[in-house]
């Protein structure tokens, strides 16, 4: 138990302090940091090149300069990232990758060259059609382009063996994370919604090898603990992300147990296991093609609703909590489709509109508490 508490404290502190954690990781590994914009980028190639990949998922800067470049209706992650880029927060990064998952990201990619002239982001084009004959070739071509650009930045090509090793490490990390989300659901009083998020988030700032060892140790420690119950509802959380901590604290206060998540910042990063055959690059490409129920990867059959229903059933959850990130068009487009399916299945939905920087969470407090009261009395 004491080992679990120590690891929970260490990892949640790391997740709560990105800047300090990145600085510590750089010092301990001797690596230069490489910034990764949301949602998914080929981190394995960055790692294989000897960099420390770090996630850039916004922050809480005072917005002063960004309106010169992007509109007020872009999401607050993109606005925060751009603001911090302009004011020099990312000057320490050796490199930066900006993928093209949404219109805001495409605008930022184009503007970054002007707004932050010292940093030259490497673009990563996201596949739109994953079901055609040429889909695999397209992703492989994008990975090759990215590999070449990272190698040029590094001053030496990224070797096949380094990519194989990095991919094996990342698969190990992803398996450990899948095990962690299950372990956390067993002990929801210990791994509260707030701590769960911070522990998962810490992976964006710590070297994957170091982090994976720690999360495996935490999984073992949690497995040794007796199963726990909380007083509130058991839920599946879906959306882009669930932040800030003051928002997650409301779930903790009301005894919610997060039984699983479909958050882009959390489980969507690691829920799809790679195929066993092929080179590391082919397996990386297939992971992109095999990811299901994901807002950011188009599907004809829109499987997200079915996936959420299955998650509720498999985990014995009471409801789905939708964390709708303000101005996130892809997530907003998906909502009516899966809402209809959940309604038809009789699964209650708590819809919450959130932003990364929220000065007051009182209205959200009423909704979250009311939903718990509603489910407890039904």
């Amino acid at each position: 138990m004491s080992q679990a508490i120590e690891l929970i404290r260490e990892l949640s502190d790391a997740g709560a302090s990105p800047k300090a954690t990145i600085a510590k990781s750089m010092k301990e590994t001797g690596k230069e940091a490489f910034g990764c914009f949301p949602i998914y980028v080929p981190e394995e190639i960055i790692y294989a090149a000897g960099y420390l990949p770090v996630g850039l998922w916004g922050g809480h800067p005072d917005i002063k300069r960004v309106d010169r470049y992007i509109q007020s209706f872009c999401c607050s992650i993109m606005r925060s990232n751009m603001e911090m880029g302009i004011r020099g927060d990312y000057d320490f990064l050796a490199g930066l990758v900006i993928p093209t998952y949404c219109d805001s990201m495409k605008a930022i990619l184009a503007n970054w060259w002007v707004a932050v002239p010292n940093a030259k982001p490497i673009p990563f084009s996201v596949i739109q059609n994953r079901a055609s004959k040429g889909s695999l070739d397209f992703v492989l071509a994008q990975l090759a382009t990215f590999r070449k650009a990272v190698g040029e930045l590094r001053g030496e090509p990224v070797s096949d063996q380094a990519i194989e090793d990095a991919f094996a490490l990342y698969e190990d990390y992803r398996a450990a994370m899948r095990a962690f989300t299950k372990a956390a659901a067993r002990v929801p009083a210990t791994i509260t919604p707030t701590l769960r998020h911070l522990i998962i988030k810490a992976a964006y700032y710590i070297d994957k090898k170091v982090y994976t060892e720690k999360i495996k140790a935490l999984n073992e420690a949690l497995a040794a603990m007796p199963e726990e119950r909380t007083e509130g509802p058991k839920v599946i959380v879906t959306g882009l992300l669930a932040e800030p901590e003051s928002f997650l604290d409301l779930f903790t206060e009301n005894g919610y147990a997060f039984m699983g998540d479909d958050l882009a910042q959390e489980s969507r990063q690691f829920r799809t296991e790679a195929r066993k055959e092929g080179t590391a690059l082919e397996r990386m490409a297939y992971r992109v093609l095999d990811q299901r129920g994901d807002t950011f990867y188009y599907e004809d059959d829109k499987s997200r609703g079915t996936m959420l229903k299955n998650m509720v059933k498999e985990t014995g959850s009471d409801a789905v909590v939708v964390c709708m990130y303000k101005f996130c068009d892809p997530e907003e487009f998906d909502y009516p489709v899966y809402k209809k399916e959940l309604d038809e299945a009789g699964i209650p939905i708590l819809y919450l509109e959130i932003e990364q920087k929220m000065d007051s969470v009182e209205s959200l407090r009423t909704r979250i508490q009311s939903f718990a009261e509603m489910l407890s009395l039904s």
Partner: protein
Amino acid sequence: MFLGIDIGSSSSKAVLLDKGGAILGREVVNLGTGSGAIDDVIDVLLEKAGVDRGDILYSVVTGYGRIGYEKADTQITEIGCHAKGVYHDFPEARSIIDIGGQDAKVIRLGDGGRVDNFVMNEKCAAGTGRFFEVMARVLNCSLDDLSGLAAEAEYAVAISSTCTVFAESEVISQLSAGASPASVAWGAHKSVAKRIAGLSGRLGLIPEIVMTGGVALNQSMVRAMEEEIETSILVPESPQTVGALGAAVYAKEKYESASRDQSLQ
């Protein structure tokens, strides 16, 4: 005796129930959370009812100020309380439209006054009591007179802005262009009704529909809402205190449930 307390954003309310569930009294003061007015409200309520604080068996607090109020035995949200309060007076009700000072809620009820589902407005004053305060200021009348002014209108001036700040500018422009204050006042009511109807549409309204909250005192607003949803609306005798009534009902239930548990042990 059982005490229900509702500390809202712009008013504080309290209701006292006797052991049989009959209402002994209710009080409202138009000062909300942070003002400390709730203690005066409770003092007045108890004095009028001739009840000592020591006679209160259980108390429940609700409303935005519930978290900071530590003198009650427990707290629950106003959504659950409005459901219980409405069920107390209108057991046949299936939907509630609650428009308060700074938020609006639509609640759907199941059997026994259970909350089946609910929606709330987003972070915006349009469609709340705050919108009427702004309109009254622009029209240079009191909030109480706004409803009567709207009732005099022969037509409604269309207010297209969904934001309170923009709507204020729009209304000033309309008045400058010669629109009558009455038609602007009625237009403001229709504008709020449209927003609430839109919110209701996300949930689906099932009759009987009851309107609660301070804005339900505004008869023009009730009429505008009825026209918008094309259904008649029931209004409690004291719509502002429905949340506090629900809190008192919950206090009674909680006390009786705890007493039953004790007697079983």
